[in-house]
């Protein structure tokens, strides 16, 4: 049995050798690089929307997502804002909702037509949840002044 195995192996080696001699192996250039797919805006906003729509979202996650959105070079779409406001409602954090709207408002200042559009889209949600706009609270203008800590002492 053992010799036959040896023979079979050697035959295999010969066969492989002969085959390679007859048919040269062509080099297949397969580079193992990661496939990076650019995320479209649509996917980006749906990702955040579904994140805010999670039923078990907590304050930590909501704030993290909002901070990340604030860091983006983009203004959140109304559907994301609505989802975020509803998340604030579930978290019972009114201040968070106002702060988020303020941030959206400040980011919208690059173009005058953006903020009215966003307000128009989210106003049903605002009325349903009882959230005031930053303007209604007077937060579109500085309300209080704070001494610069560098100048106190």
């Amino acid at each position, binding site marked *: 049995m053992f010799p036959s195995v040896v023979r079979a192996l050697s035959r295999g080696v010969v066969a492989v050798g002969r085959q390679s001699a007859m048919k040269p192996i062509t080099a297949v250039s397969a580079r193992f690089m990661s496939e990076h797919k650019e995320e479209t805006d649509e996917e980006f906003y749906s990702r955040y929307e579904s994140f805010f729509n999670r039923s078990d979202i907590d304050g930590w996650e909501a704030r993290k997502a*909002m901070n990340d959105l604030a860091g983006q070079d983009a203004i959140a779409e109304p559907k994301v804002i609505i989802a975020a406001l509803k998340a604030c409602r579930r978290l*019972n954090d009114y201040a968070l909702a106002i702060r988020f709207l303020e*941030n959206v408002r400040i980011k919208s200042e690059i173009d005058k037509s953006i903020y009215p559009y966003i307000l128009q889209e989210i106003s049903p949600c605002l009325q349903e949840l009882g959230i005031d706009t930053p303007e209604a609270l007077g937060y579109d203008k500085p309300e*209080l002044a704070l001494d610069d800590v560098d100048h106190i002492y």
Partner: protein
Amino acid sequence: MYSRAIVRSFLARPSAYNKLAANSSTAAVFQAEPKAPVQGVMQVREDKIVGRDIVGYGLNGEPQYFDSITFPFPSVRFMKNTPEIVALRVKEKGDWKKLSIEEKKKLYRASFCQTLVEVDAPTGEWKAIFGWVMVWISIAVFSFVGVRKFLTSTADDPTLSLEYRQAQLKRMIDLRVDPIDGLSSNWDYEKNTWKS
């Protein structure tokens, strides 16, 4: 490096570790009054947030309050959980339409120190900066003029008199300074006069 080694050896002692753990940020949230600070390195900062909720990640994961446009949601609420605010939080769980504007503002200021517009508000500091720049520029200009007028005098310098300057010109011509397209090229050495 050396101080870190000290901290690490300090933390390695179980008694110190337990004390720190009892005063750590998580425990600090539920303390109404600040505990007497334990002698240690990590106490100072942690004691400042005593009585406040740690609510998120914030700027870098540290429990600290900081108002910023780019990171609008700090990890700590700004104000301590006083009974008044705790009562408001209970009310906040109900319908938000029933909250008055004052209560809403109070809730906001309990979580955040400044609104984002206030963070961005102009401070008027540029006026002071402009004024000081002008003060120092005028001091510099006046000292320059004063030095030129009162400290440096050319009147008694003999080398600036006409004779000295003419002698120097003569010597430059004798030395044939710049003979191709400069001073000496305009001098006629045969007639001993300027070329016309």
